[in-house]
């Protein structure tokens, strides 16, 4: 069973970017079963910017599943943004999941935006001022909902989609001082609470691509400034064979990275 997953985050669309991704997106049906968007679709989270996202990522020949990012919350228009995206056929996850029938099996995707807090041994605690407790409880609640969503899906392969990072590995390159604003170990703990095959996130523009949770789940940072291409493609499965790797587009390579 092999499922082909394309993913990108942090595309920060506005009128000045519309059209840049589209030529590459048109090639998606040849190389992927689904496109995951890891949040920060817009610059400020306005309805007008969401329409740019709908224009760029709507009407594709593969299902598109997204979570929102912190930028998508900036103008407090989340309901309007979600409606514009859903009207364009894009599935928006926040504490829930979706199961897609792919050629290689049933792909379950659970998603939350997530939040900060930091990583084991160097993280914020639910203690002290109300503001601090609210910060940490926001993350705890988000991680709890991610874990519950992951465990609830009946599928052949499970993928976790977040904006914030579940591990510090994929933050390498970011200043250590801002790690607590880039993710939380609690998201990793949620991912490890289910038989997750892959976790995809964005948010850390200066981070690196690859990491694993303490439980051994592969994590990929697909923030656009990190991957430096329209999207990354992952073939996930237990019957992979290099001969099965088909070229991507006209200029595709038959060699895998690993």
């Amino acid at each position, binding site marked *: 069973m092999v499922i*082909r997953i394309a993913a990108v985050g942090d*595309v*920060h*669309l506005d009128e*000045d*970017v519309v059209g*840049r*991704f589209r*030529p*590459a997106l048109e*090639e998606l049906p040849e*190389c992927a079963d689904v496109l995951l968007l890891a949040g920060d679709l817009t*610059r*400020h989270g306005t309805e007008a910017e969401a329409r740019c996202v709908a224009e760029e990522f709507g009407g594709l020949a593969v299902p598109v599943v997204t979570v929102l990012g912190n*930028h998508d919350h*900036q103008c407090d228009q989340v309901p309007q943004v979600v409606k514009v995206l859903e009207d364009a056929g894009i599935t928006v996850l926040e504490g829930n999941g979706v199961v897609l029938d792919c050629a290689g099996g049933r792909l379950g995707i659970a998603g939350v935006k997530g939040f900060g807090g930091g990583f084991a041994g160097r993280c914020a605690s639910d203690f002290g001022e109300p503001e601090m407790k609210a910060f940490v409880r926001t993350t705890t609640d988000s991680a709890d909902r991610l874990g519950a969503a992951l465990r609830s899906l009946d599928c052949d392969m499970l993928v976790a989609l977040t904006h914030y990072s579940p591990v510090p590995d994929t933050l390498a390159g970011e200043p250590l001082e801002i790690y607590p604003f880039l993710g939380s170990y609690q998201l990793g703990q949620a991912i490890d609470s289910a038989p997750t*095959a*892959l976790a995809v996130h964005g948010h850390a*523009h*200066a981070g690196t691509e690859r990491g694993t949770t303490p439980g051994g789940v*592969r994590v*990929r940072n697909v923030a*656009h*400034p990190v*991957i*430096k*291409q*329209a*999207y*990354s*493609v*992952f*073939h*996930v*499965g*237990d019957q*992979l064979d*290099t001969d099965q*790797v088909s070229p*991507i*587009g006209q*200029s*595709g*390579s038959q*060699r*895998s*990275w*690993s």
Partner: protein
Amino acid sequence: MTHHRDIGAGPPDEYVEAEIQRLLVEDPAVAEQGITVVRRERALVLYGEVESPHRREEILRLVSERFPDVPVTSDIGVIRAQAPTEIEQLP
């Protein structure tokens, strides 16, 4: 954001650096969190990557408007958006 009074040679560089960083995130015309401000001997250098040439120009315009006396150079790139040429297999 705190505004500095003009005293002598102006605010210490570290505050200018902090102000530019916050300006680039908080100004609605820019909203970029991924720009790094680095102090060099002769100028402040802006590093990072943005989604369009227009955004790079906006960043430079904003910084030079707010800090007309601070020499600023830019090494901001526009992120490529081509289709991938390789895949990653995850057994």
